[in-house]
C-alpha cells in the first residue's frame, strides 16, 4: 500500500511538473525541427532511427538532471522526514522516483519517436515493415539509456552534497555512464540489441542497489 501511494504521488508530481510538460511538447517539436533543418539524415538511416538516437541522448541527460536536482533539493528541504518517520521501507522512495521519471521520460520519447515514424511514412514513403526492426532496436537502446540515466540520477541525488556538484557530475560523467549499454553496438557484437538490453538491465539494477544502500545508510 505504501509503495503504491508513494509511487503514485511521485508519478503525479513528475508528469505534472513544468519540466515534464515541456518534454511532452519539446521532444516532438525537436523531431519535426530535425526533419526540416537536417533533411539529409534520411539518406543514411531511417528518420525515426536517427530521431530516436538523438532524443535518447538528450532524454538520458534530462532524466539524470531531473532526479539529481530534485532529490538533493528534497533532502535539503527535509522533505523525506515525512516518509521516514512512518513504518515504511526506505527503498520505496528511490525506487518510486526511479520508475516515475523513467516512465515519464520514456513516454515523452515514445511520442517523439511516433512523430518520427509518422514523418518517415508520410514524407519519405518508407515502407514501415522495412524500417520497423531498426526502429525497435533503436527504441530498446533508448530505453536502456534512459533506465541507466535515471538510476544514475537517483544515486547521484542521494550521495551528492549539493545541487551544483550533482549537476556537474551529471554533465561531465553522466554521458559516459549512460552510453555503457551501447558498448555491444559500438564494438559490433552480433545480436547487439539483446546484449544492450541485458547490459542496460544489469547496470540499472546495480546502480539502484547502490542507491538504495546509500539511502538506507543516509542520516537525515
Amino acid at each position, binding site marked *: *500500500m*505504501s509503495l503504491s*501511494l508513494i509511487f503514485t*504521488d511521485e508519478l503525479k*508530481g513528475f508528469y*505534472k511538473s513544468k519540466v515534464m510538460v515541456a518534454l511532452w511538447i519539446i521532444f516532438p517539436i525537436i523531431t519535426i525541427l530535425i526533419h526540416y533543418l537536417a533533411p539529409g539524415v534520411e539518406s543514411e538511416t531511417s528518420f525515426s532511427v536517427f530521431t530516436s538516437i538523438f532524443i535518447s541522448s538528450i532524454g538520458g541527460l534530462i532524466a539524470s538532471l531531473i532526479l539529481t536536482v530534485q532529490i538533493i533539493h528534497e533532502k535539503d*528541504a*527535509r*522533505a523525506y*522526514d*515525512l516518509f*521516514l*518517520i*512512518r*513504518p*515504511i521501507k526506505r527503498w520505496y522512495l528511490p525506487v518510486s522516483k526511479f520508475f516515475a521519471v523513467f516512465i515519464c521520460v520514456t513516454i515523452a520519447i515514445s511520442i517523439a519517436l511516433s512523430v518520427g515514424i509518422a514523418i518517415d511514412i508520410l514524407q519519405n514513403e518508407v515502407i514501415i515493415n522495412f524500417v520497423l526492426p531498426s526502429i525497435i532496436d533503436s527504441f530498446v537502446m533508448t530505453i536502456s539509456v534512459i533506465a541507466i540515466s535515471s538510476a544514475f540520477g537517483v544515486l547521484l541525488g542521494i550521495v551528492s552534497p549539493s545541487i551544483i556538484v550533482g549537476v556537474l557530475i551529471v554533465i561531465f560523467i553522466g554521458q559516459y555512464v549512460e552510453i555503457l549499454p551501447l558498448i555491444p553496438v559500438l564494438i559490433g557484437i552480433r545480436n547487439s540489441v539483446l546484449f544492450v538490453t541485458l547490459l542496460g538491465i544489469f547496470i540499472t539494477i546495480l546502480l539502484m542497489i547502490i542507491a538504495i544502500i546509500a539511502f538506507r545508510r543516509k*542520516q*537525515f
Partner: protein
Amino acid sequence: MPVVEVKNLVKHYGSIEAVKGITFNINRGEIFGLIGPNGAGKTTALRILSTLLTITSGNVQIMNHDIEKKPNEIRKIISYLPEDAGAYKNLTGRKYLEFIANFFGEEKVEKMVSKGIEIADLGDRITDKVDTYSKGMKRRLLVGRALMTDPQLAILDEPTSGLDVNNAQEIRNIIKKTAKSGTTVLLSSHNMLEVEYLCGSIALIDDGLIVEEGKPMDLMKKYNASNIEEVFTKVVKK
C-alpha cells in the same frame, strides 16, 4: 513506567559532538520541553527520538521499544513535526492530510482527515492549494497532520517557530488540548516563556548537555528567578 527513557545519549557528526550524553524520562500525558539556545543539540535529540538519526552511543526506549532494534514499532506510535518541514505545495490542504492518512490504512482515513481539519482550523481554505497558504496556515496544517494520527508520543520541534502571536497562541492551545487527551508531548523551543506556559517538566540543554531539569515552578524557586529565561541564564553562567 515512562513513555520515553533516554540514557546517556551521545551523537557525533564526524568529529563534532552534537549531543554529549543526555539522560531524561518523560511520563505518559506529560508535556516535556527541551529548551536551549540554537545549536545546543535540541533538534539532534528530537531527530534521534523520531528515528531519523542513529545514535552514536547510549540507549533510547520509547514505550519499551528500543530505538535501535525496533525503529518501525516506534514509527507506528509517534508523530514528528520538524522545525522547517514543508508541506506538499501542489496539493490542497485536505488532499495533503488525506495523502498522509492513507499511510495508516484506508479505514482510518476519514476519521484522521476530519481530526486534522479540525486541528488545522483553516475553514474553507482547507480546499485551497498549500502554495497559497501563509506561513501560519502552513504551520497549522502541519500541526494538524502531526496530531491527527492520535500518536502516543508527539515530537514537536519548535512548533511555533516563525509564527505571529495569534497563530502561536492557537498552536499552544492545540498542544495543551492534545496532551489532555492522553498524548505525551516532547517539544523543543528556544522560546523559554512558551515552554514555561506549556510544559509540566523541562530540561535545559546547552552545548549538547542537559544542565538542569525539573518542573518550571521548582526550577524558578531553586534559582530564585521570576521566569525560566532567568533560570537558564543563571544555570549557564554557573
